[in-house]
């Protein structure tokens, strides 16, 4: 029955990538809405989230069904467990996008703050990371997948730097505390996106190499 399961797995991957693509678009729109102070984009992101949630349930049910029916072993087992975790991570990624969009709507109520120099670069990096995580999944590219963790380390550094910058800013101008907190949350969400992309990378690495690299010498 190998043949039959193979085609099922292909279909599953197709669904996963579809969901990943939606999440990628959501991330782009959310970031654009932050950078350009665009309300429509933010609302659109929030609206799309339902689709992703539905897809997540669908994929999860499908994975469970395939495991129950085929009781797979070896690569197929790794694939299905990976698919379940990647599925979960993409859904959380989409949730983060929604959170980013919410912060973006919040920020619209305040006058713009002075621009953070690192904001464009961190958004660029995390978008790249999400794209590469999905690419690694398509191409079963273990190297690319592993490398995501290193980039996540970089994101963390930038995030910490931005938090410090925000801190100094707020000590100087305590009246901006409200928008400052929104920004802080926003940065946190962006950093989390990087983590999720790295998680996806770890799962893909496990799929290809059969080796768990989670929690092993995390670059910080």
């Amino acid at each position: 029955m190998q043949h039959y399961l193979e085609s099922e797995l292909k279909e599953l991957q197709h669904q996963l990538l579809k969901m990943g693509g939606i999440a990628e678009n959501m991330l782009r729109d959310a970031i654009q809405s932050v950078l350009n102070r665009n309300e429509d984009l933010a609302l659109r992101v929030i609206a799309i989230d339902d689709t992703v949630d539905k897809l997540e349930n669908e994929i999860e049910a499908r994975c469970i069904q395939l495991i129950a029916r085929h009781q797979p072993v070896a690569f197929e087992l790794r694939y299905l467990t990976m698919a379940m975790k990647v599925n979960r991570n993409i859904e959380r990624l989409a949730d983060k996008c929604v959170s980013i969009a919410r912060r973006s709507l919040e920020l619209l109520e305040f006058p713009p703050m002075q621009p953070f120099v690192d904001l464009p670069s961190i958004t660029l990096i995390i978008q790249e990371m999400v794209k590469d995580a999905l690419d690694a999944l398509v191409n079963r590219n273990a190297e690319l997948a592993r490398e995501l963790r290193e980039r996540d380390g970089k994101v963390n550094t930038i995030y910490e730097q931005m938090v410090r910058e925000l801190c100094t800013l707020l000590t100087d101008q305590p009246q901006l505390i409200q928008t400052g907190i929104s920004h802080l949350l926003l940065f946190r969400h962006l950093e989390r996106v990087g983590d999720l992309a790295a998680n996806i990378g770890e799962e893909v690495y496990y799929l290809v190499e059969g080796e768990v690299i989670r929690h092993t010498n995390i670059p910080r």
Partner: protein
Amino acid sequence: MPQQSNLSTLHISELNVWYGKNQILKNLTFDVLSKQVTAFIGPSNSGKTTLVRCLNRLNDLSVDFRHTGNILFKGKNIYASKINASEITKQIGMIFQKPIPFSKSIYDNVAYGVRIDGIKDTIQLDDIVEDSLRKAQLWDEVCDNLQSSPDILSNGQQQQLCVARALAGNPEVLIFDEPCEQLDATETPKLEAIVQSLKTQYTLIFVTNKRRQAARVSDVAGFLCCGELVEFGQTEQIFTNPKDKRTEDYVTGRLG
């Protein structure tokens, strides 16, 4: 995801079966939906074979077979007195545990059911034979020696031949009674693939005592235990969230 179709090909209600004084099946009620694979699993001697043999009236051959309840095939009671048993067996084909090729040539084996219908036209026969062998995915292997005896075929191929022979009679329902029992590990997936491919055109009933096989091939599954239909439902549900404790024990391998 199996498509839920409302078309029920076989409707069984309150079926009780006795052999002599032994009650083998107890009050079974279920529907077999068309164009789906319905699997029956259960431990040995749970009455799986008895059940499927009721559906095509093969049990009429057993001397002290007795039943109550209704079996409707496309709305008609198959045990109604005006219905001829061979009409029913024609429309509900069966593949047995053991491959049973007749001691005739491969061609004559496949053409057997068609010839019973009185079709003698060679061109028509050739067409049917080729078509059936293709559906059973055996054509490429035997097309050069259709006139030789089935003894040259492997066990799995003989079983495929039996599938082709059953298909040639153009049945609507096809019953597989533990068809892989005598096949080896490489031949089993092939037969399962054939079952999958036949699903689009036929209503299939698949009896097996290998739960994993039932999980792989079926859309709907029923668990028989000691003559009772303990649970009957979508395969995923049976294998991921069985409602009955006995089903749970069976599918997890703790029972039988």
